[in-house]
């Protein structure tokens, strides 16, 4: 069952097309990694999904509701941690959570607030105004606020910003726990590919106003997919070999070609190419599969 469906979404700002004919699908129970370069339209998409920005065209459906028409009903059931999120500095953490809980119709007790804060690793005995919090503490408090209404779908925009490695690990564990134990669907917009590789089962790559790729994260495990660049003699021969088992040939320049190798060792891949009459004279590993895929689909291919 799809909890998020976007069809032919369009949005422009001052004549610049940010989203054009964009499609996106998030299934129930997914941890969906939403990737794309800076300014590609990820935050715009999230805002449209929440109903705080209106699209210029297309159809948007979140849990059966149109965000533009039923935004307040939708936001009762979802929550978001935006990338830029300020706080009311004069409030204390407990007041802040209680205030936002009240906006969702929840009357949070002190124990409830304490539970939410401890869940994200905030010291609940820390009694001082939010304006004195560090960046990492504010990020954790923002996460606690995003969970205050126990949302069915959680949208996160750079959730591990400002967190140290321990904090990042704690947030990862929390999200995995919420997804597995409570069935929460999570959509994460981030640049940190490690986070995506650890958490997500599906990804969407947004570039040039469109989703360039949407699907599983390299099948069973992304770690088994490696990107290689091969230098070959006779480039026209490799171009005709697009359906080699375990080897996905992408594009190339001159006699260098990028390939994604899955479920085989690099030497096996080279042997396979040579057996098919494609002499490989040089091979360079270019990084993990996700990074490779990201760079490929966003035009940021690395050169040797």
């Amino acid at each position: 069952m799809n909890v998020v469906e976007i069809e032919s979404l369009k949005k422009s700002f001052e004549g610049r097309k940010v989203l054009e004919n964009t499609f996106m699908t998030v299934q129930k129970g997914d941890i969906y990694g939403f990737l794309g370069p800076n300014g590609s339209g990820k935050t715009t998409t999230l805002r449209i999904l929440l109903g705080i920005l209106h699209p210029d065209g297309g159809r948007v459906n979140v849990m059966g509701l149109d965000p533009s028409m039923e935004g307040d009903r939708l936001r009762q059931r979802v929550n978001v941690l935006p990338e830029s999120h300020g706080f009311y500095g004069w409030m204390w953490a407990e007041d802040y959570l209680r205030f936002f809980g009240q906006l969702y119709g929840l009357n949070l007790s002190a124990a409830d607030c304490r539970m939410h804060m401890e869940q994200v690793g905030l010291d609940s005995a820390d009694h001082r105004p939010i304006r004195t919090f560090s960046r990492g503490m504010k990020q954790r408090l923002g996460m606690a606020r995003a969970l205050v209404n126990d949302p069915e779908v959680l949208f996160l925009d750079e959730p591990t910003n400002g967190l140290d490695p321990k904090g990042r690990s704690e947030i990862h564990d929390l999200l995995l726990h919420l997804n597995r134990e409570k069935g929460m669907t999570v959509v994460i917009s981030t640049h940190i590919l490690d986070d995506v590789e650890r958490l997500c089962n599906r990804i969407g790559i947004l570039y040039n106003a469109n989703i360039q790729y949407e699907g599983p994260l390299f099948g069973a495990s992304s770690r088994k997919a490696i990107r290689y660049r091969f230098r070959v003699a006779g480039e026209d021969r490799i171009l005709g070999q697009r359906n080699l088992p375990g080897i996905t040939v992408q594009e190339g320049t001159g006699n260098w070609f990028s390939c994604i190798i899955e479920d085989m060792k690099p030497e096996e891949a080279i042997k396979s190419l040579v057996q098919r009459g494609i002499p490989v004279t040089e091979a360079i590993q270019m990084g993990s599969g996700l990074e490779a895929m990201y760079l490929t689909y966003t035009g940021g291919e690395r050169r040797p």
Partner: protein
Amino acid sequence: MKKHFLLSLTFLTIFLFVPAMNGRAEVPSIQVAIDPPPGALTMGDKAVFQGTVYNAGHQHLQGLVVYLSLVSLEPGHEHPMDLEDWSAQKAIRIKRLAPGETGARNWSMRLIRSGRYGVTLTVVDPRESRPMVSNLIRFAVLPKPAIASGRIVPVAIGEPLIVLFLFGLFSGLHNRRRQTRDRKRVRP
């Protein structure tokens, strides 16, 4: 007999003509008068006094200076008043006054304090050695209910201090209540 007749005639001449000559010399060429405003005067009112200067002589008068004087006539506290706060009009100059002509001017005065007062008008002719002064107009300025300064000063000084105190107290109590609540929670 003739000697007695001549002596009597001399004395008669002196008595008849000298007084007449003296009388003619004592008639002033300038006559000045001032009239008070009608009705009761209350503190804060703007009173208008009408002054007149009459040229009773046979010659043209030029460059007359006319000014108002105010004195307090409170028994035991008689003193001249500074017109600075009472009236913007002080001295005026009459450029030229023909024989038989009357120059009339109004002096307006703001009655800024209650009490008993007297006002006169004085005319100075540059060619004469003695100024001419009008009759003294006595008038009373009645007091008026003014703003109760006894209430204003405590409020004006006290209220900002109370507001400052209340803000500080409220903020401090709120923070202390929260810290007490947190301390109770930390202790098992």
